[in-house]
């Protein structure tokens, strides 16, 4: 699960890390009020940032500066409602614009190959790290945390010296690096990025002082661990989420909505992806990824059917079940029941093999379902059915 910037920053603050203040606004007026408050506290300019879960908001015009509360309100008005890569901007973050001396990147990910948490730092901050990795890979410095003991202080110091933060900011850098690793452990995050981690100049009682600040934060959480973090589960952005996702989660179905016309219902993630691939290969476009999981009972089959039919673009449905734990006859019964209840009639091609496949075939035959013996055949029939349905509708 991805977190919004504001939520990610909250987790940084919980680790005691230096994050400048911010406010979240859902309307231009709220943004203006927040700007007024920061300005009353001495801020000269504020930054207004679109809160969306996709990257590249800066390039898309979702980040703007404002010098007065009125300007902040106006800027927020332009950003709120924007469509950034398919995500509607419903919230903006408003905060004092930092006087940035220099930007760095600091992040940590769960690395599969080494089975370690790997921490990365770069003096090339403020730009996407994937970009740095492609253009100047040597500019990214890495250390692997110990699987039992975590990141050693000396490893954090090595990163600090490598990116040129070995001077007055050394201790604070080490503290931030440790904090990010602790944040991962405390919240079961599999990625945390501070980009930019910046040296900022701030007015102090005796002239300006320079210190490290986490200006932006990106965190993704391990979905498998969310059950033990109900406080994080509550951060899920239900606004930005497809309502179908919530229903899928309720029934323990893995569901991802796509742009095609062939709805897919499959047991097993790998087989579900393969089914999508074969639909594409047969000349169609999958409307979704859907894994009903193991041992799927009738109510789950019915829910999967609702999810698929909830997409008006769907013109045919392909059901592909390889029975193992899942019993084919049970899925067949679920399909028959679901079809009897559904309002919209969409052609359906069903392939059920494995456990109790013979009984499933008998039930499906009696109920006049179109069936297929192989996956390739099923994909071909589904694509043909969708074409017929689309042709008929025209």
């Amino acid at each position, binding site marked *: 699960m991805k977190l919004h910037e504001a939520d990610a920053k909250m987790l940084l603050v919980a680790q005691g890390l230096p994050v400048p203040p911010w406010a979240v606004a859902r309307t231009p007026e709220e943004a203006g009020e927040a700007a007024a408050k920061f300005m009353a506290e001495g801020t000269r300019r504020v930054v207004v940032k679109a809160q969306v879960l996709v990257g590249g908001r800066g390039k898309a015009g979702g980040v703007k500066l404002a010098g007065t509360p009125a300007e902040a309100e106006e800027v927020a008005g332009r950003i709120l409602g924007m469509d950034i890569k398919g995500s509607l901007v419903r919230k903006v973050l408003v905060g004092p614009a930092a006087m940035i001396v220099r930007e760095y990147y600091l992040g940590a990910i*769960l690395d599969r190959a080494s089975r370690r*948490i790997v921490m990365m730092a770069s003096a090339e901050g403020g730009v996407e790290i994937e970009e740095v990795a492609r253009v100047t890979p040597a500019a990214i410095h890495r250390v692997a945390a110990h699987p039992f003991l975590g990141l050693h202080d000396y490893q954090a110091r090595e990163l600090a010296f490598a990116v040129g933060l070995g001077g007055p900011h050394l201790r604070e850098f080490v503290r931030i690096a440790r904090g990010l690793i602790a944040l991962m452990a405390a919240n079961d995050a599999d990625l945390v990025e501070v980009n930019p981690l910046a040296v900022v100049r701030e007015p102090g009682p005796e002239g300006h002082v320079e210190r490290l600040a986490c200006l932006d934060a990106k965190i993704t959480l*391990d979905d*498998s661990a969310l059950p033990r973090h109900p406080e994080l589960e509550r951060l899920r952005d239900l606004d930005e989420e497809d309502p179908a996702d919530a229903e899928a989660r309720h029934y323990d179905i893995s569901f991802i909505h796509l742009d095609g016309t062939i709805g897919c219902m499959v047991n097993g993630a790998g087989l579900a*992806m*393969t089914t999508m691939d074969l639909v594409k290969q047969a000349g169609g476009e999958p409307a979704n990824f859907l894994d009903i999981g193991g041992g799927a009972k009738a109510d789950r089959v019915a829910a999967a059917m609702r999810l698929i039919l909830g997409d008006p673009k769907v013109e045919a449905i392909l059901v592909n079940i390889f029975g193992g734990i899942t019993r084919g006859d049970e899925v067949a019964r679920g399909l028959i029941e679901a079809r009897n209840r559904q309002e919209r009639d969409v052609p359906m091609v069903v392939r059920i093999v*494995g456990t109790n496949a013979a009984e499933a075939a008998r039930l499906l035959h009696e109920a006049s379902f179109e069936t297929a013996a192989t996956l390739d055949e099923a994909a071909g029939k589904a694509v043909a059915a969708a074409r017929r349905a689309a042709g008929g509708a025209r």
Partner: protein
Amino acid sequence: MSILIGRDTRLVVQGITGREGEFHARQMLEYGTRIVAGVTPGKGGLHALDNRVPVFDTMVEAVRETGANTSCIFVPAAAAPDAVLEAVGAGIGTVFCITEGIPALDMLPVVELVRQAGSRLVGPNCPGATSPGRAKVGIIPGSIHREGSVGVVSRSGTLTYEAVQAMTDAGIGQSTCIGIGGDPIVGTAFLDVLQLFAADPETEAIVLIGEIGGGAEEEAAAWAADHLRGVPLAAFVAGRTAPEGRRMGHAGAIISGGRGTAAEKVAALEAAGFRVASSPTELPALLRTAGYRG
């Protein structure tokens, strides 16, 4: 011969008195797997599966009393990491963890400790393995297999069944089929299994079934290029149509930052000499094309 499991397997089922554990233990027993013990803390002294399998409170007791050398774990996600450590602590050499939904960070110290102990963990969130005609451990349906000499390794469950069924239907039998699991952190990677197959005199060809996410297929391909010349190799990679940034069911199946795409994996596998199928049903024919005569 076969790899990981075979005629010498003496299996203990951890969580044998649970619903899942009991169901699959029965299937394994019917397949012919030698299940010598079950473990459920607090149920020591009982006998499971119609009195055929003694149940112990602890793994150390189960191993001492029955000489078990392999374990299969069906306990819930919250208790599964401890179950793996208990198995390894009791001297079990090969541990299959079927349990799904274990948080990835919980697995980091576990895989490291298993490595240090010199044991092998397969999974978590894996379907297990079958050495047809000898033993099956886990949840793969026994009926899809046929005895033979093709090694199969996969990150998936049902997709593996699909591929294996296609091979069996085409008259191509398997030495061992292994599902390594779809989680980001697993105990045994493709590479490890390729190495085991390479050392197994009975395995004459290899089928690898990958999916999007991570770089384990590429890592395995790089090794295969240097070490498996002359071995008939075929592969399939699921997820060519998967969108970026979305987790496709498996915790590990996600393209992030443009990395882990099916195209990259197919290219790496082809460069290493794998014939890559566009559908699992093509695998038998590709094996023949690659020179497999079994």
